[in-house]
């Protein structure tokens, strides 16, 4: 087990299949019965349809009614949607969400690329580093939130203790209770949780770049910096797109850490859209209006996914399917 972490073998089998062949019947006798199709495709379609597709449609319908969850839903037409554009809390939530998405991307991407390049190296100590870097991925979001909450406690937290013993007075802050700090602290905790995952993605991506390219660049007299910009980054473009989209969709729907650490406060400074939706639905019992917020989240999610499909070539997989039918 002393061998350095070699290229993700299982991973690459999953991740970068050879160019897809035309799949389908051609040449092979088709003897599958409709019963086999039903047994194979039925369960996922049923499960997925009932708990994803039906709720999607239901969310759109619910966004057009007024309902507190108990009585009969009352038709409301577009009034919930009109409320969204008048609601100052919703407006704040949209801005806070945009900040979380944007800042998360800007903070996490460069650090993940740098750490990914570092951990892609085959030296033994880098393998050790890579292993330790993964640890936050094993923790549940709830666990991470509770850990940071007590670490950042202004009275008994670890940073406060550090500031007392080291005279670094700036460490003594009400990190999660100060309206001008809380959002950035939350974004930092989110980064702590997710940078390990994206580091892993970039390390896998870096190892898949053929060594030949670097050899050629060396012959051409390129220095390491030039190699990074001219060889590594262009070769990582799919990883950059995939990681970026996961980051954007992930922080768009960010909920757990904020719910546990600040619950949107102080004031509304960390109230992201998903948290606003949760509160409107399950605290204020306004299922109709909450569905407006939910539909908005879903539409943005799908819009980002269409980007994923366009950029990463998943669509070629789908069209291969259709072409062979």
């Amino acid at each position: 087990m002393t061998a350095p972490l070699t290229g993700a073998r299982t991973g690459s089998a999953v991740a970068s299949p050879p160019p897809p062949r035309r799949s389908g019947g051609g040449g092979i006798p088709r003897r599958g019965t409709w019963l086999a199709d039903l047994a194979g495709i039925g369960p996922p379609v049923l499960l997925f349809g009932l708990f994803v597709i039906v709720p999607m449609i239901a969310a759109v319908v619910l966004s057009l009614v007024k309902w507190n969850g108990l009585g009969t839903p009352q038709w409301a037409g577009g009034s919930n949607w009109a409320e969204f554009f008048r609601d100052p809390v919703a407006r704040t939530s949209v801005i806070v969400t945009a900040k979380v998405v944007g800042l998360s991307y800007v903070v996490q991407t460069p650090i993940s690329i740098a750490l990914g390049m570092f951990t892609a190296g085959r030296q033994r100590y880098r393998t050790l580093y890579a292993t330790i870097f993964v640890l936050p991925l094993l923790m549940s979001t709830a666990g991470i939130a509770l850990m940071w909450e007590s670490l950042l406690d202004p009275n008994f937290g670890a940073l406060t203790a550090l500031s007392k013993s080291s005279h670094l007075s700036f460490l003594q802050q009400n990190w999660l209770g100060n309206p001008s700090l809380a959002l950035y602290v939350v974004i930092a905790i989110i980064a702590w949780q997710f940078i390990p995952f994206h580091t892993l993605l970039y390390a896998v991506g870096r190892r898949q770049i053929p060594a030949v390219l670097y050899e050629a660049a060396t012959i051409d007299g390129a220095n390491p910096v030039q190699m990074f910009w001219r060889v590594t980054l262009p070769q990582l473009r799919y990883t950059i797109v995939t990681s970026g989209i996961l980051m954007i969709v992930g922080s768009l729907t960010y909920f757990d850490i904020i719910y546990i650490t600040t619950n949107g406060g102080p004031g509304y400074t960390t109230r992201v859209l998903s948290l606003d939706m949760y509160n409107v639905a399950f605290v204020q019992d306004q299922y109709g209006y909450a569905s407006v917020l939910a539909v908005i989240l879903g539409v943005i999610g799908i819009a980002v996914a269409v980007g994923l499909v366009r950029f990463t070539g998943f669509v070629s997989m789908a069209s291969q399917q259709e072409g062979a039918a």
Partner: protein
Amino acid sequence: MSRPRAGRLVAFTLATVWLVIVIAPLYYMILASFRTQGTYLTANPWVPTGGLSASSYSTVFAAGLGRYLLNSVILTAVCILLTVTISLGAAFRIVRRTTRASSAAFVVMLFGLAIPVQAIIVPIYVLIYKMHLYDTLFALILTLSAAAIPVSVLIMVSFVRDIPRELIGAMLVDGGSEWTVFRRLIWPLSRPVLATLAIYNGLNVWNNFLLPLVLTQSSNVAVLPLGLTKLEGLYSINVPAVMAGVLLSVLPLLVLFVAMRRQVMNSLGGIVAR
């Protein structure tokens, strides 16, 4: 090919800074979990002196952590079994048939990747409530498995598609049925990918918070992440107990990780990397 020494030093330094950022909170948490309520308030949280005790661990077990642990294990095991079986079968049929219906199902799955759970949580809650499944583990099994279906099916389709069709053809010519092909060829070849998928889905299910929060209520069906926050509600001033709970909730995954480090890292990194 050798990089200048200065560049390596900078890389090493920056990586070490990140290493400290990763380890410091974990170290703090481990240490805090071995305090009592009294020593937590008085001792320096960074130095392992001033009285350590394991009493918090018995406190959290007395508060029902064992039950949360059991619920999480049941939920995760059933979800893994369900998603792996379902997605392998579906991938096989999608690849073998490519009828219009199965391609349509495939495209729908693709879009399913993009729907955030938050966007559909209200109808899911209503649905589960109407099905009289509210506050049951079964509700979590169904919804978390459904959430894992798109990724699983997509990964399995892209894998099964690359199994040489000559092999399938040969088996059919030799008089094998579709079921023989599935059992003798597809299933054995897919096992490594299925392991990858199981780890990835398992982690997601184990750590999910929102669905248990919305779909369950009572302590006897609470899973670990939710249980931890219940613990916090119960012991809001007992930080060592909460930290001990968090640590115990990571422990099973840590054991898994130590036992199969490469497999875990490959499945996490490889599942979406292209």
